[in-house]
């Protein structure tokens, strides 16, 4: 199946929908499996011919699996730089695949729930993404896809060590379970470090991208399993699955606390953020992310009623550099992107305000 990236630009992928369980706090649930084809060296030692042969082998085998023939297969090395970054911004491919060399591809389904990366760090990276907190469905789908592919490809497998991967950090199940959480109230109440420390004790990794000073950029954190060997896939999934409700609960309590103790300050912070987004003439990606985080919490707490969570998720994605350039239809330098981003935000948010006024 062919895919038109320009057509993708106009619509929201699975994880941007703001739907699914607990989607006020959980952005997305993702599981990926790392696999290698037995008869080839790992990517680092592959020749250009090996990479091309792996790419072709996966593409040919995929065509033989009726359940997977609808996937769009894109040769990433044949795409423009903007298109490669565009796919990464939608989380369909990794930054590593953007920057890699030689023949490499991605196969994606129409809903952007499933993506198969070919010739990333491993020959094959299967990824399933769900909106909200939905790891059980994500595992069921990825396990089925893995089984289907396994009927056509011989994976590198060792009786004792399990699935063999280029990096020993992935050996065994090759499985990484990740949940992306939005935790602004835990950041404001300065409880986030405490949560991190307790997660590290139970072998879970937390990553956050920080902005200037100590303020988290966008207050988004990803929790994932650190180990991949010595436990079954279900055990690894459950480890993340069981801890997320506790963090959701902490975040909700922190939000309640802020509403009770400090509603005026909180409302002011959120309204100012919304105000800047609606009026700025030029705005960086970092500031946009930071302000959208506040507005997202405002929507969840009922302090902003012009928008729904899907709008915020869409704005997070659409204001990233490659998306802006795709939407604009041409290349933009940093200054150009900053003013285009501000223009996009002003237009989008004033339309929403107008829609809201029309309904009332």
């Amino acid at each position, binding site marked *: 199946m062919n895919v038109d990236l320009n057509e993708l630009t106009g619509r929201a992928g699975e994880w941007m929908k703001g739907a699914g369980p607990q989607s006020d706090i959980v952005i997305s649930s993702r599981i990926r499996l790392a696999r290698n084809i*037995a008869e080839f*060296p790992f990517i680092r030692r592959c020749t250009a011919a090996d990479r091309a042969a792996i790419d072709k082998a996966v593409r040919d085998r995929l065509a033989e699996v009726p359940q997977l023939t609808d996937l769009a297969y894109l040769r990433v090395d044949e795409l423009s730089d903007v298109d490669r970054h565009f796919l990464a911004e939608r989380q369909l491919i990794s930054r590593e695949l953007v920057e890699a060399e030689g023949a490499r591809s991605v196969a994606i389904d129409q809903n952007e729930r499933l993506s198969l990366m070919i010739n990333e760090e491993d020959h094959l990276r299967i990824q399933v993404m769900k909106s909200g907190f939905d790891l059980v469905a994500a595992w069921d789908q990825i396990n089925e896809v893995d089984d289907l592919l396994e009927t056509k490809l011989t994976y590198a497998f060792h009786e004792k060590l399990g699935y063999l991967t280029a990096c020993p950090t992935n050996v065994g199940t090759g499985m990484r379970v990740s949940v992306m959480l939005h935790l602004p109230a835990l950041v404001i109440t300065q409880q986030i470090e405490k949560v991190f420390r307790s997660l590290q004790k139970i072998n879970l990794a937390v990553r956050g991208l920080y902005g200037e000073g100590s303020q988290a950029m966008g207050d988004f954190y990803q929790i994932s399993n650190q*180990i991949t060997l010595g436990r079954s896939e279900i055990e690894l999934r459950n480890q993340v699955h069981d801890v997320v409700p506790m963090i959701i609960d902490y975040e909700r309590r922190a939000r309640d606390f802020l509403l009770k103790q400090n509603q005026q300050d909180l409302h002011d912070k959120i309204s100012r953020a919304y105000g800047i987004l609606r009026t700025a003439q030029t705005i960086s990606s970092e500031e946009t992310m930071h302000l959208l985080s506040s507005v997202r919490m405002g929507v969840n707490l009922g302090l902003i009623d012009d928008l729904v969570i899907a709008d915020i998720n869409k704005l997070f994605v659409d204001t990233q550099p490659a998306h802006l350039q795709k939407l604009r239809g041409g290349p933009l330098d940093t200054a150009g992107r900053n003013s285009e981003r501000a223009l996009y935000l002003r237009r989008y948010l004033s339309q929403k305000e107008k829609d809201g006024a029309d309904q009332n």
Partner: protein
Amino acid sequence: MKCQQCEKPATFHITELTGAEPQEIHLCEGCAQKYLMQTPGTGMPGKASLAGMLAQQLKVADTAKELEKLDEKCCPICGISFYEFRNQGRLGCPHDYVFFASELEPLIVNIHGDLVHKGKHPLTHKRSTESQTKLIQLRREMNEAIRLEQYERASELRDTIRNLEESEDQPGDEHSV
């Protein structure tokens, strides 16, 4: 503030939370992208920290001379040296897990706290680790023959690979792993 990797101003301030203590890293946009690429949103140790972990482990275990000797050890199938693995944190082929087993096992236990897979197994197409290795080696020889323009030898090797693959893919094939 300047980027820790180059002279440009630091615009990204990342707190790495995968180690024992949170670690502040200040980078410019370009270096931050490279840094984040190493650890693509998975929370796993990056190449640098994995190499660091290995170096630390080996320092305790070996003298400099022994380490130097170990670094020269090369996998006969993919040709990767232990030094290369130690530096890049990535292995060259599935056979490395067998060939470097004694060096890798303490590292794997260090990362995962275990050495035994308890997850799913391939349902079909089981191929022994020896035959996986054989196929990688044959492919390597074929590529080398092509590079040296020994086309007759290359086509012989191609046929051998094809035969081996076909014989193993027959239904009822019972190669144990």
